[in-house]
């Protein structure tokens, strides 16, 4: 967008690349807590006004329904280096906002699906969404106080996850635990990437 300017602009240094990771999972599973613990800024909220063709209702008449909804997105920031800034976006938890995950996931590096073992079924939808779209994700089991403890393998079975999808236990309130979850995601991306260039689908379905 550079235009010739008579007035001297400041020397433009290279700007950092913004990187997006989604934090998903059902309502009340700890997404906000997770983002809060990791963010270097007070987590912010921005509004997006989205128009989506409704997929879930009234399809019999063949008429597409359009819905316009304002959704507040909570996000946090982690500055990784002068050239990379990571943004964590919590996906809206309510079912009626799932239509907008498509837009939100555009350009995302990957996702963390938080799961609460007391309500594992609340995370089915997120798992299903990312699987269908071939978006890499890890499952992080948020170990709430008093939550029943399960082993990662039990959670994997209950969520019917592919063997290669990492499942990690974490405490969403603890920053280092959150960092480890993100590292797990990056490692997973690096591994799947090196296994096969760009044929994600083949790899994920193998």
């Amino acid at each position, binding site marked *: *967008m*550079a*235009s010739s*300017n008579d007035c*001297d*602009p*400041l020397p*433009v240094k290279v*700007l*950092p*690349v*913004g*990187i*997006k990771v989604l934090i998903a999972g059902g309502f009340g599973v700890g997404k906000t807590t997770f983002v809060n613990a990791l963010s270097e800024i007070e987590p*912010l909220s*921005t*509004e*997006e*006004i*989205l*128009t*989506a063709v409704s997929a879930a209702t009234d399809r019999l008449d063949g008429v597409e329904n*359009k819905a*316009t909804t*304002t959704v507040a*997105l909570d*996000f946090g*920031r*982690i500055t*990784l*280096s002068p050239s*990379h800034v*990571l*943004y964590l*976006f919590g996906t809206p938890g309510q079912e009626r906002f799932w239509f907008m995950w498509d*837009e939100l*996931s*555009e*350009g*995302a*590096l*990957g996702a963390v699906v938080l799961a609460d073992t007391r309500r594992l079924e609340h995370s089915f939808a997120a798992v299903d969404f990312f699987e269908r*779209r*071939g*978006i*890499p994700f890890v499952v992080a089991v948020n170990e709430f106080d008093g939550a029943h403890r399960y082993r990662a393998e039990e959670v994997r079975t209950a969520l019917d996850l592919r063997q290669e999808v990492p499942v990690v236990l974490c405490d969403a309130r603890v*920053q*280092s635990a959150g*960092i*480890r979850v993100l*590292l797990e995601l*990056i*490692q997973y*991306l*690096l591994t*799947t*990437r*090196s296994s096969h260039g*760009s044929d*994600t689908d083949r790899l994920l379905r193998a």
Partner: protein
Amino acid sequence: MTPVLPDGPLIDEAVGRLVRPYTVSDGRTRATSHFTLVTVVRATGAQTHGAFGLDHAQVLALCERPVSVAEVAARMQVPAAVVKVLLSDLAEGGAVVAGDAPPPAPGHSARPDRDLLEAVRDGLLKRL
């Protein structure tokens, strides 16, 4: 001040699937540059030429240091789509520059760059 909905499909290549004229952007919804929520922008310090209003000035003030589109929107308390339009105006006039987008995302046929992943990993490791 009744918003007028366009006749065409409510889709905009640059802004996304959200099209509604906004008062703050004079009803314009087409962002001429490609801004995403995580695009990092920064004011260049160049004098602005166009007839920019208070909202543009507010955006400029918020991006004196590198900042993401999402942060500008959050701090202005207006939808991100509006901020994208204002930023496009400013970028066209040379008052704002935008950083690169990360390489194509996973799940959309391409894999992210190894260098990018390693940079993210190293940055995270430093935080442990």
